[in-house]
C-alpha cells in the first residue's frame, strides 16, 4: 500500500511541477495546490499505513493509526488553504492591474529596462 501511495505522491508532484512551469496564472496556482496535495499524501504515507483503528480512544481498539501525522497534515492543509486563497486573489488582482495572465509578459524589474 505504501508503494502505491508513494507512486501517487510522485504523480501528484510531477503533475504539479508541470503545471507550475506553464505560463498562465491559474494553471500555476492549480499546480501549487496539486504539489501541496502531493506533500500531504507523502506525509500520511511516510508515517506508515499499517491497519489500525481511527485515533479515537472511545473505540477501545488494540492498535490505532498514528495520530501525529494526521495532526501535522491538518495544520499543513489549513496553511496551504490560506495561502492558496491569498494566491488566487493576488493572481486576480495582478491580472486586473497588469492586464495579462501570461508570466512571460511580467518580465522586467523596474522602469529602467
Amino acid at each position: 500500500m505504501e508503494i502505491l501511495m508513494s507512486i501517487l505522491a510522485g504523480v501528484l508532484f510531477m503533475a504539479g511541477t508541470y503545471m507550475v512551469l506553464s505560463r498562465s496564472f491559474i494553471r500555476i496556482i492549480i499546480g501549487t495546490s496539486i504539489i501541496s496535495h502531493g506533500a500531504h499524501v507523502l506525509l500520511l504515507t511516510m508515517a506508515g499505513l499499517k491497519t489500525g483503528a481511527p485515533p479515537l480512544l472511545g473505540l477501545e481498539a488494540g492498535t490505532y493509526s498514528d495520530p501525529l501525522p494526521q495532526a501535522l497534515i491538518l495544520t499543513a492543509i489549513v496553511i496551504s488553504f490560506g495561502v492558496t486563497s491569498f494566491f488566487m486573489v493576488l493572481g486576480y488582482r495582478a491580472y486586473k492591474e497588469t492586464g495579462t495572465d501570461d508570466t512571460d509578459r511580467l518580465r522586467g524589474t523596474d522602469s529602467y529596462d
Partner: protein
Amino acid sequence: MTNFVILPILIPLLTGIILLFFPKKVTFQKVLSFIASVLLVIVSVMLVFQVHNNGIQTLELGGWQPPFGIVLVADMLAILLVSTTSIVSLAVLLYSFYSIDAEREKYYYYPFFQFLITGVVGAFLTGDIFNLFVFFEVMLIASYILIVHGGTKVQLRESFKYVLVNVISSALFVAGVAYLYAVAGTLNMAHLSERIGSLETQAPILTVIAVLFLIVFGLKGALFPLYFWLPASYAAPPSAIAAIFGALLTKVGIYSIFRTYSVVFVHDTGYTHQILAVLAALTMIFGVVGAVAHQDVKKILVYNVIVAVGFVLFGVSTLTEEGFMGAIFYLMHDMVIKGALFLLIGAMVVVAGTSHLKDMGGLIKHHAQLGWMFFTAVMALVGIPPLSGFIGKLLLVQGGVSAGQYWIVAAMMVSSLLVLYSMIRIFLNGFYGKIQLEHANQYGSTKGLLLPSAILIAVSAGIGLGAEMLYPFVATAAETLLHPEIYIDAVLKE
C-alpha cells in the same frame, strides 16, 4: 520564571491582534506598536543575560515532556538573534512612522508588521521542526501581505513570483519533514539528533534528507542556485518593508541551516558540509557580480544581501569554533547593517526622486548627514576595524584557514573588495559628482528618516567596539553549536 521564554513571541502576537481592531486609528497603532517594540527589546536583552547566567532556557508548552510536546529553546544563538531582531524591528518601525503613507497605514500595516516579527522570533526560539515550519508560514504569510501592500503594478508583478517560490519551498519543507519523520519517528530537534546519532548504519537517506533541507532553507535564505527570486522582489516594496525583509527574512533561512546542520545532521558531515562550503563560495561570487553589475541603488544593495548569506554559511561549513563565532558575529552585524543601509538608501531615493545612479549626483551638498551616515554604514558593511563587520570577517577567515579552505577564503576576500567597490560607487556617484538637482526642486525631506538609521549605525559601532564584551556571549553560542550534546541535554534533561 521559565515562562519568560515565550514573551518575545507573545508580545508582538498580542499587539498585532489588538491592532487589528482599530485599523483607522493610526496614532493609536503607532503608539501601541512602538511600546510593544520597546518592550520586546527589553525582554529579549533580559533573556540574553538570563541565558548567560543560567544556561539554556527551555519552556515545555502545556507541561508536556520534550519529545512529546512542543518545546521552546532559548539557547545563546537563538536569543542573540532575537535581540538583534528586536532592535532592527524597532528602528524600522520608527522609520515606518515617517515613510509609510497614510493609506497603507490604515490598511493593517502595523498589525502585519507585528505578525512578521512574531514569525521571525518564533522561528528562532522553537525546538521542534514542524513548529519551525509553522512559524516560517506565519512569517511568510505576513511577508506576502507586506510585499504586495499598496498594490502598485511592480509590487503585484513581483509578489506573484515571490509567493510562488515560497509556496513551492514550503511544500518541499513538508516533504522533508515527512521523510525525516519516517526515518527517525520524532519531530523534536534534540530528540531527532539523538535518534539520528543512534542509527547504526549512518543511513545514506539521512544525507539525502539533509540536502533536501538545504534546498528548502536555501530557497528561503537565497543560497547560490536558489537566489533568483530575491533581487526583483526585494526591490519592489517600499523601503521600510524592504529593510525588514533584507535584515530579517533571509536570516531566518540561514539560521535554520545553522540549526539543522549543527544539531540534527551532524553525524556524516564530510559530504554535506563540503556542499555547503562550495555553495557558500558560489553565493558570494554570484552575489557580488550582481552587485557590481547593477546601476540601480536598490538592486546593488539587494545583491549585497546575497553576498552576506554566502559569508555566514561559509562559517557554518567550516565546523570550527572560530568559523561558528565568525558566522554568529557576522550574522548579527549583517542584520543590523543591512537594516541601516536599506533605510539610508530609502532616504536617498526619497531625496533624489529616483533609484538610478545615473540620475543622482551631488546629494552631499544639501544632505551631508545622510552622506556621511551612508559612508559609515558602508565602512561597517565592508569591515573596517572599529566598526562591526571586522570582527566577524576576521573570525571567518581564521575559521576558513584552520579548516584548510584557502580558495574559499580567497574568494571571500575578493568579494569583500568588490562589495566595497559596489557600495562606494553609490557614494561617489550619488553624493559627489555633478549636482543633478538644486535644493529647491529636490523631491522630499529626510525629516525623521535619519534617526532610525543612526540608531542602527550606533548599534553596529557598539558591536564593533564592544566586541570584547560581546565575545563571551558569542563564545557560549558557538560552543553550544559545536557540542550539540549541550543542547540535547538541556532539552531532554537526562
